[in-house]
């Protein structure tokens, strides 16, 4: 019996072209034993939801530095739902103003991470968020 792997889609929706942070997180998740599907820059919410479906991931991590998070995040959440992928946990990393964090969480985003977050924190939160689904 092979052990169940945590599968994570790391995606950059929208137009900003800076993906260093996303790559650092992807690498850290890999080192934590997760399988990370990295889709590259400038993804539409539709592309992200479709990739999440085909790859049957447990987690979607969105990296957003453009300020468009209040438009992009709900769209991704909605499309996941349309695809019967409600169980997929969504995390956001990037530049998110404090006042938006609660609003994002209310929409269903599990965690929001700004500059200075340690990768350990993200890894721990991911493990916790999907621990119920793994068994």
């Amino acid at each position, binding site marked *: *019996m*092979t*052990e*169940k*792997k945590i*599968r994570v889609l790391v995606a950059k929706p929208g137009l900003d072209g800076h993906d260093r942070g996303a790559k650092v997180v*992807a*690498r850290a*998740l*890999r*080192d*934590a*034993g*997760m*399988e*990370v*599907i*990295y*889709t*590259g820059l400038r*993804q*539409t919410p*539709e*592309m992200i939801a*479709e*990739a999440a*479906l*085909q*790859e*049957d991931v447990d987690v979607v991590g969105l990296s957003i530095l453009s300020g468009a998070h209040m438009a992009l995040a709900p769209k991704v959440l909605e499309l996941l739902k349309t*695809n*019967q*992928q409600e169980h997929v946990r969504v995390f956001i990393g990037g530049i998110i103003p404090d006042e938006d964090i609660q609003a994002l969480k209310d929409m269903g985003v599990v965690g929001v991470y700004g500059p200075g977050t340690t990768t350990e924190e993200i890894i721990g939160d991911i493990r916790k968020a999907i621990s119920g689904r793994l068994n």
Partner: protein
Amino acid sequence: MNLAASILEGNRLAIARLMTQVENDTVEGLAGLEAIFPHTGQAHLIGVTGAPGTGKSSLVNQLARCFRHPPPGKEPCRVGIIAVDPSSPFSGGAILGDRIRMRDLAGDPGVFIRSMATRGSLGGIAKATSGLIQILDAAGYQTIFIETVGAGQAEVDIARLAHTTLVVEAPGLGDDIQAIKAGILEIADILVLNKADRPGVESAETALRSALRLASSNETRSQHPEYIEGNQADDSTVTSNKVWSPPIIRTIAIDGNGIEVLAEKIEEHRCFLKESGEWKKREKLRLQSEVDALLQRTLMQQWRDKMSVMLYEKILSQVTNRKISTTNAVKLLMNGDNIQ
């Protein structure tokens, strides 16, 4: 949801879910594969292999586009893609990055892309790759690309799994060409010289051509080296004088140059396989090697279940102390149940 039934209807969520079950080797996964198996065997399986950075993903992206939008008069076919990347031997994690090059295919419901990690398998593909192929096959994807891990020399498992094997090369790999000649070139049905706009393309092609000429002077060339062993003459029902000599196709995947020619060659190879009887032969060997691999794993598991861990450790420590040889250790272990 009855996964197997939904897969036969082409339900994408069901396809993805069963794939996960198969990768995790669960009871549900095995049952699903069993249910869909009678519906497999329709698709043309195309393996794409080559050294890291030669442009395999970009090529698959372009080829898939070409099969989805063929020249007028041809029917577009549904395309499945399985892209394999390596798992870390230390953490077991993986970065699966082949989708980055395949963004042109996003939004096309006739394309299904799945990334998978090797999870410890060597040989360029994963243990569960053949299972994932079966799922796409049963779901009605007529053309399935299997992109291997960036492979250099001995990762030739793909040739057993696919009907048509593309080996992708690029100029500028220099002396690597020499090394590649020995192993991976021999499994090529079609050689792709990608990045053909780069300097050194002429000398790379010359090197490939001379390597191929050496190979084809050997009479068994047309038989596909992977399949020669012990299977050459036993199939007397199939007689064929046709010979396929692997062509070299230049491409520039990034802008689509040469892709149509390559797609035609792939189609030509499929026709060749069908007409020469080679298709049936490869199917048989393909399934045989799947059965063998499964048998091997099952036997190993059965043996492990019976084996006492203590005895195993004891014998192992005798080996590390150089008291008994590895060969002797295996002999003792095979008789394990007698010793207990």
